[in-house]
């Protein structure tokens, strides 16, 4: 087991290294930061001097190795945009994104599983069909439009929920949270729905179809034949078996949630790393971009690993030979 974790870890690190290099070589094509740093008054000489100082005239591979070397020591450089160390900026922004991602994922998971189970059990019911059809509307519109429509309805027209930001935050054990205050909780509602809606639909439909398959299995028939209550069958047996594939999807979707947070955070001015990344792209703030991609990449690797381990926890069949399972 331990060897398995180690092996996955190194695979992950290798992947990260490659992804990082590809990303890094792409940065040179998305513009250069000189105008942003120097302002419109700069002369040609100023620009050359800056290029030299930033090392942007060196080959990509050299720049990348330098970045990696520093990154190994926890040194991610300093933002071109405002001179603040990247690690500090990311650390400051990460809690906001993590809170948003987790709340969105929980929203997607709970509502998705709930509706999925409901629509599976009442397969041909009117309400179930209605839910199935309307849920498709949520995935037939792009995220940014949903966000803007929510702002329009709930902030501008109804004036009941905030249109931007995290609201009031407090620091609990060094973690700046918006989940402990009323305004913070109010602020997270619209962004979390915007971000989680797609995943909610996905989870719901997946749960439904998996559940329908599970409900047709012999062991569910056998459970019925044993005279178990509907409740025990649906939740004790069917749901647990249904969730197995759902966990994989959730793992992948958590990655998607973090990536799509870029859009949600832009729409709602949510002060997380996604917004930081978009700003960095606009400013060609290479250290921030590189660190963000590295961070997101590591998150994906960790999530993947956690999902694999979770599989082993839930599925007893994998416990003995977990290393061979996947």
């Amino acid at each position, binding site marked *: 087991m331990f060897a398995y974790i180690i092996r996955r870890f190194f695979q992950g690190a290798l992947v990260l290294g490659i992804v990082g290099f590809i990303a890094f070589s792409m940065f040179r094509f998305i513009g250069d930061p000189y105008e942003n740093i120097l302002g419109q008054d700069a002369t040609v000489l100023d620009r050359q001097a800056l290029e030299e100082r930033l090392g942007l005239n060196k080959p990509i591979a050299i720049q990348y190795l330098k970045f990696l070397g520093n990154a190994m020591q926890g040194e991610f450089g300093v933002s071109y945009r405002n001179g603040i160390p990247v690690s500090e900026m990311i650390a400051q922004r990460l809690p906001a994104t993590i809170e948003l991602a987790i709340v969105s994922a929980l929203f997607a998971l709970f509502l998705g599983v709930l509706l999925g189970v409901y629509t599976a059990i009442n397969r041909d019911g009117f309400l179930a069909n209605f839910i199935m059809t309307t849920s498709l509307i949520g*995935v037939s519109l792009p995220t940014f439009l949903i966000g803007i429509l929510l702002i329009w309805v709930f902030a501008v027209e109804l004036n009941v929920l905030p249109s931007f930001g995290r609201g009031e935050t407090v620091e609990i054990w060094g973690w700046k949270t918006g989940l402990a205050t009323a305004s913070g909780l109010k602020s997270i509602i619209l962004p979390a729905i915007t971000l989680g809606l797609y995943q909610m639909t996905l989870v719901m439909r997946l749960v439904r179809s998996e559940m329908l398959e599970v409900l047709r299995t012999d062991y569910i028939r056998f459970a019925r034949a044993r005279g178990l209550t509907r409740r025990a069958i649906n939740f004790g047996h069917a749901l647990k078996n249904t969730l197995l594939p759902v966990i994989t999807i959730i793992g992948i979707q958590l990655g998607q949630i973090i*990536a799509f947070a870029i*859009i949600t955070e832009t729409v709602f001015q949510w002060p997380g790393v996604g917004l930081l990344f978009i700003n960095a792209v606009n400013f060609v703030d290479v250290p921030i971009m590189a660190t963000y991609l590295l961070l997101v990449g590591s998150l*994906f690797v960790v999530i993947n690993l956690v999902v694999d381990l979770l599989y082993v926890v839930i599925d007893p069949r994998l416990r003995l030979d977990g290393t061979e399972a996947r």
Partner: protein
Amino acid sequence: MSDSRWLRWWQSDVMWSWRRSPVAIVSTAVFFALAFAAIFAPLVAPYTPFDPSSLNLMDGFTAPGETGMGSGNKYWLGTDDQGRDIFSAILYGMRLSLFIGVMAVTLAAILGISLGLIAGYFGGWIDAVIMRIADIQLTFPSILVAMLIFGVARGLTPPELRDQMAVWVLIISIGLSDWVQFARTVRSSAMVESRKEYVQAARLIGRSPMIILRKHLLPNVMSPVLVIATISLALAIILEATLSFLGVGAPPTKPSLGTLIRIGQDFLFAGEWWIILFPSLTLLVLALSVNLLGDWLRDVLNPKLR
């Protein structure tokens, strides 16, 4: 198609189930109506929204059903900020969105099916390598992939080709982020299939793997592929719209549905609701009809679920 084949097709299980499902009939009708209008946009559309010289700026922001101030033309669904007829722009935009979607899904399907078949048939280290790449691809979110590819392509293509470039970059980046689903499904089907006696027999008599893959394995994986392709098509159209919000979509001189919506959202609070409403509705109806078709197909082609 001869009469008997036509009849057999009409009486097949799939078509029987289609005739019995009002949802399937309506969504097919809507989808084909939209696709038809899109394909024949140059014939259907009253104006030529992609030709900048035909636009009259003074017609800008004409409300639905009004006549433009500059040209005196009547615009049933109004015009956008450039005086572009929304109705025509939607037709042309949908044409572009569908093209991008279909091409991206085709790319994803070709890539996914080939790699999935190879992985499933040969197994061993080839399988391991392909599936590991798939894992990596799966964890890397599509919008980041698209942003990076777009950035590079932008730097590499000559400026006069950028308009076309945007479309192909979208196709490639959406296609690249979507092949894994195909590969995974095809692989598992191929694994099951390749263990069956007839494939083993074909192997034993020394038929080349290419022929076995194409003749024996491919036909057996087509129905799940069809389901995935349908759902991916809706996904690709939506993804294209999302990317246009991040500025990596189709250019505003030749807007896709997504770009139209991105432009339109600027005017949502201004009261020029038609610029965002009609393209959004079209996108919604298009994606919804494709999604509903996909749903129905999955129910029909997945015998386990019936």
